[in-house]
């Protein structure tokens, strides 16, 4: 059973004090020059440690600790960093080699312990700041950029911020506007922010109907005009909604001009924009680069090119741009079709 590093640190700390006192008597590398990693330390590692802690000898280095590269050494192993610059007695690499010979955790586990002079070299190297000079050794692979995941969901924080000092729209006003065919509700129960959409009666969703939303314009956070009959003209009215958080224009007749109109008004709250299935091109994407609040942009089935998406992506690095719908390839015809049916019991 391996003890935790903390326990080792406590135990070995004592050992180090005793050991260090003795070592000082004898003298370490004589001159006052700094210990060189490459000349003084690396040979010790190579001789005594690499067998278990270098990729050259071990496909899976023990304790997940690798000593064959600067970044690997600094990363450390299972128990954390192996080297704490300036603190030999907190550095596992030093602690483990200075344990008493009979200790189960001593390194190296086989053969004679590291010599006193070598221990002192290690100690001094760490104490002097554990610098590596020009030596890099084997580099760690660059971590893959994490796949953009959905969430975390921050819409509640956004709603909260947007509804600050905002008065709810009187219900009589809402009822009046609803006569145009819009469905109007609070974004979350009790919020003064509104969601407006045309779920049924898509034919009611016209530029005129959007214009008629004017009495609600301060409160609209979500506006869905998906599949309605709006044109670029509707954007003149939409752009006047200061709390617009999410706008869905999918499968409408809008063009690049709509996005230009939208961007011109600097919609600072706009976080999600859906223009999938429209005639938008790369030219329409360009003005979107100014909407830095954007976090999701839906461009599937538009005329934008990969180059256009790449360009915008570099300008809006935090925005998730969805411009494809990867579907699995059709299944090969099944060889053994009767097997599935047998399943029911």
């Amino acid at each position: 059973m391996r003890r935790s590093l903390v326990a080792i640190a406590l135990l070995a700390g004592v050992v180090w004090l005793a050991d260090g006192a003795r070592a000082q008597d004898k003298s370490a590398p004589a001159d006052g020059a700094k210990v060189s990693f490459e000349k003084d330390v690396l040979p010790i590692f190579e001789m005594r440690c690499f067998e278990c802690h270098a990729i050259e000898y071990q496909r899976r280095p023990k304790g997940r600790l690798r000593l064959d590269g600067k970044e690997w050494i600094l990363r450390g192993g299972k128990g954390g960093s192996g080297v704490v610059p300036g603190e030999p007695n907190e550095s596992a690499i030093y602690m483990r080699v200075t344990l008493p010979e009979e200790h189960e955790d001593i390194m190296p586990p086989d053969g004679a312990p590291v010599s006193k002079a070598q221990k002192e070299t290690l100690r001094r190297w760490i104490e002097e700041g554990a610098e590596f000079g020009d030596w890099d050794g084997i580099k760690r692979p660059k971590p893959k950029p994490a796949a953009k995941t959905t969430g975390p969901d921050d819409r509640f924080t956004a709603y909260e911020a947007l509804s600050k000092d905002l008065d709810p729209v009187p219900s009589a006003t809402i009822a009046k506007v609803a006569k145009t065919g819009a469905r109007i509700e609070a974004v979350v129960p009790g919020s003064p922010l509104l969601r407006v959409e045309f779920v049924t009666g898509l034919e009611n969703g016209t530029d005129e109907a959007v214009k008629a939303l004017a009495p609600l314009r301060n409160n609209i956070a979500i506006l869905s005009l998906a599949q309605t009959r709006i044109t670029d003209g509707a954007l003149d009215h939409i752009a006047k909604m200061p709390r617009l958080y999410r706008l869905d224009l999918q499968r409408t007749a809008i063009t690049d001009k709509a996005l230009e109109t939208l961007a011109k008004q600097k919609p600072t709250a706009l976080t999600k924009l859906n223009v999938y299935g429209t005639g938008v091109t790369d030219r329409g994407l360009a003005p979107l680069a100014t909407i830095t609040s954007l976090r999701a942009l839906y461009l599937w089935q538009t005329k934008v090119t990969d180059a256009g998406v790449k360009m915008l992506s570099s300008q809006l690095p935090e925005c998730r741009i969805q411009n494809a719908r990867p579907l699995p390839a059709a299944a090969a015809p099944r060889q053994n079709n009767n097997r599935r049916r047998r399943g029911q019991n």
Partner: protein
Amino acid sequence: MRLKRNLNGFDPVTRRDFMSGAAKSLLGLSAMPFMAELAGAGETGAITLGGATARNVIYLYMAGGMSHLDTFDLKPGASTQGPIEAIDTRADGVRISQHFSQLAKHMDKVAVINSMNSNQGAHAQGRYFMHTGYQLRGTIRHPSLGAWLERMRGRLNGTLPGHVVVGGGANMATNGFFDASLTPLPIGDPSEGLTNSSRVKHVSESRFQDRIHRLEKMNEAFRGKYEARSLKDYSKVYEEAVRLMDSKDLAAFDISEEPDEVRAAYGDDRFGQGCLLARRLVERGVRFVEVVSGGWDTHSENFDRMGDLCPPIDRALASLLSDLDARGLLDETMVVLTTEFGRSPDIVQDRNLGRNHYPQAFSALMAGGGIKGGRAYGKTDGEGRKIIENPVRVEDFNATIAYALGLPLEFKLYSPSGRPFTVAHDGKPVTELF
């Protein structure tokens, strides 16, 4: 007076059967097995409260008990694992069965729950529990989640049914003790869409209107005499049916409108086509769609059958997530995959390597609708036997869905006999998933 009492005392199932039967025989029309009033929103728009992180739910149900060890909670090297291997996914640290190679590319959108726990080890009971959050009793029928949603939030699209079950049969979702109008619409074969939804040919339009009109006249007098709620339901069925017959949104049920390659991508089987139908319905404002996949009761030949059962799910779910995402629907549509229980870690040798029922620990998935994807929640021990981290009871699972939908978890609704019930039976939502 006796008639009135009897009508009031009808339980929902009987009433529904009575009404749909009556409608069929009287109108030359196969009645829609649903009847709901427009709660809140009309076609011309209205005001309702609603909407939290999720507006819609696509609920994928693996009927029979899906083996957690062979799908989403693999234990490579354990004696309980068997031959199925784990593969890496797009989400760091989330590994799933080799049979889900397509889904693996979308696991950044999915949260795996590996600590599901139920106390019901038999199919009917487990299924009922999972759908309603309550245990099966002889004295009452509890509503399932879709019915709760429709009851509390109404419909988005007034001309389409509020919730739909594809390929499930009657023993899945239910309106429970709620009005018969909250009964889900069952669809048997998604490729056939909504059958019997057009006027029969030998009845002309004018004659049809005439019949409806005359029926209304006859009913008027009767309804005036007997003020029973069930009678109102009864006449609603006609209104709703007729409205749906005329609805442009009826096309939502017709998946033949989809391009061939899309239908092929979802998979040429009922589950795949059901998922495609679910997407079409959600797109048009149906808020709760359940799609059922059967055959997961792998008491025998468990490993062999995983090779048949999983690929259709893999293909359909990968397509569904991708499709919803491309349309900007995923962040408001919660996709749930669940089952009544897991399967025993111990492999039954004498039945060609089967697994038995195992409610103590099993797996489920949630994606979209505000769920933070790309990770696993909860943990079982090294052999998939015991939950060792963050157990999620069935009630908690349902509460999580209800929470995402913005339903008030403590709000009590009363059964006809006056007993109080809540949407998720006092379960606690797993808010860490959001």
